[in-house]
């Protein structure tokens, strides 16, 4: 089994790499690359993302053929893919961070700034929040409802089809914190920084 973490200059991915290697040990091969052939031959792909929606989309587009390869992997071949943080947000049709930017369009919807209720709520939403699991998701196997996950973001994904939502959190409003649509998984939180329970989610994804 080979799991590829897509390295597309999206900022700091060391923690993602460390956590996947910790979970995989010697049983699963973890590759960190933007090589299109290596991505194509993977069993699973992880799409991390830090910084702004625009900077991540730009970084994806900067690597010739990467978006096509990811489309082929996740949409045509329906192989499992996990987006983390902005990696999840890029599933949307459109994002409004910095400027209006087109996303991958895998899960119809938009990414907008969290409403901070006139400054009543601090942004970024940083820290540990309890997830409310709203549908059975394979990555939540043996994960208790109301588990704590680590978040750091100012924007939220608002999908059109609410049935893709697998968990939400309460902040200034109800915020989508994970989605599952067939083979496509995404978490707004950082499983790689969510302690033992986060590692369990990574393990669930690896063992899909």
């Amino acid at each position, binding site marked *: 089994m080979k799991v590829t973490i897509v390295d597309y200059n999206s900022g700091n991915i060391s*923690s993602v790499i460390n956590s996947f290697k910790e979970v995989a040990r010697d049983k699963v091969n973890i590759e960190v690359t933007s090589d299109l052939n290596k991505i194509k031959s993977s069993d699973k792909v992880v799409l991390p993302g830090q*910084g702004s929606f625009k900077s991540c989309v730009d970084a994806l587009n900067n690597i010739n053929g990467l978006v096509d390869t990811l489309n082929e992997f996740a949409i045509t071949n329906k192989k499992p893919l996990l987006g983390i943080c902005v990696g999840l947000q890029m599933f949307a049709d459109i994002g409004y961070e910095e400027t209006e930017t087109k996303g991958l369009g895998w899960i119809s919807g938009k990414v907008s700034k969290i409403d901070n209720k006139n400054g009543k709520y*601090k942004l*970024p*939403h*940083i*820290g540990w929040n309890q997830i409310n699991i709203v549908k059975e998701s394979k990555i939540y196997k043996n994960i208790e409802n109301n588990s704590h996950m680590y978040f*750091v973001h100012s924007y939220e994904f608002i999908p059109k089809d609410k049935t893709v939502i697998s968990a939400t959190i309460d902040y200034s409003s109800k915020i989508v914190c994970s989605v599952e649509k067939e083979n496509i998984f995404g978490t707004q939180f950082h499983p790689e920084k969510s302690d033992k329970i986060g590692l369990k989610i990574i393990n669930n994804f690896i063992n899909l």
Partner: protein
Amino acid sequence: MLKNRIIPCLDVKNGRVVKGINFVDLKDAGDPVEQAKIYSDGGADEICFLDITASNENRDTIYDVVEKTSKKCFVPLTVGGGVRSVDDINKLLNCGADKVSINTAAVQNSEVVVDSSKKFGSQCIVVAIDAKKNEDRWEIFTHGGRNNTGINAIEFAKKMEDSGAGELLVTSMDRDGTQVGYDIDLMFKISSKVNIPVIASGGVGNLDHLVDGIKLGNASAVLAASIFHYGKYSVKEAKEYLNSKGIPVRI
């Protein structure tokens, strides 16, 4: 509901912990990796390393420490001390730090904050504000508290938010090391002025001080060093105490 965070801070000098946990079963009391692991296993919401290495030739020791720690601790890791440039930040992030705190460099040139938050995202840029009261205002100190800049700390906090900082780590130089509690006025004034989270630091001597930092100072997170180091309280005890006072924490 978003929980308030407890962040133990370790002072690291030449790659070794200076003030650390004084546990008998520690194999190596000076090893920052082992101490960080104890904190994260004990429920710390984040770990903070403050590099106080004075000489330039030993500066690289922190990179090795961060790299090893990030392979063992799976909670957020913030690293500060001696961070001068976008390149320094890049190196720390590549070694596995999740956030980098900038102090003197942010005061000298706020473009470092602008540039680094654009390049890496605000989520990993923490500006550390060291402030001391001077009559009716607080002034920013740099170089580990040695230089008074005369800059108004509250205004500076706002400027850092506008420059792209994702969080502010606010330390009262009057209280640091005194164990008499945070400077609540300072925390509250800054927290009310900005819309980004504030981490309170400097002066914790008991668990009620942590409660005050959150309830009265309006801090999103509380940072402490010595109360955890010498085994006076464990992180777990601190969390249980906060919880008993009605403060939401991750337990």
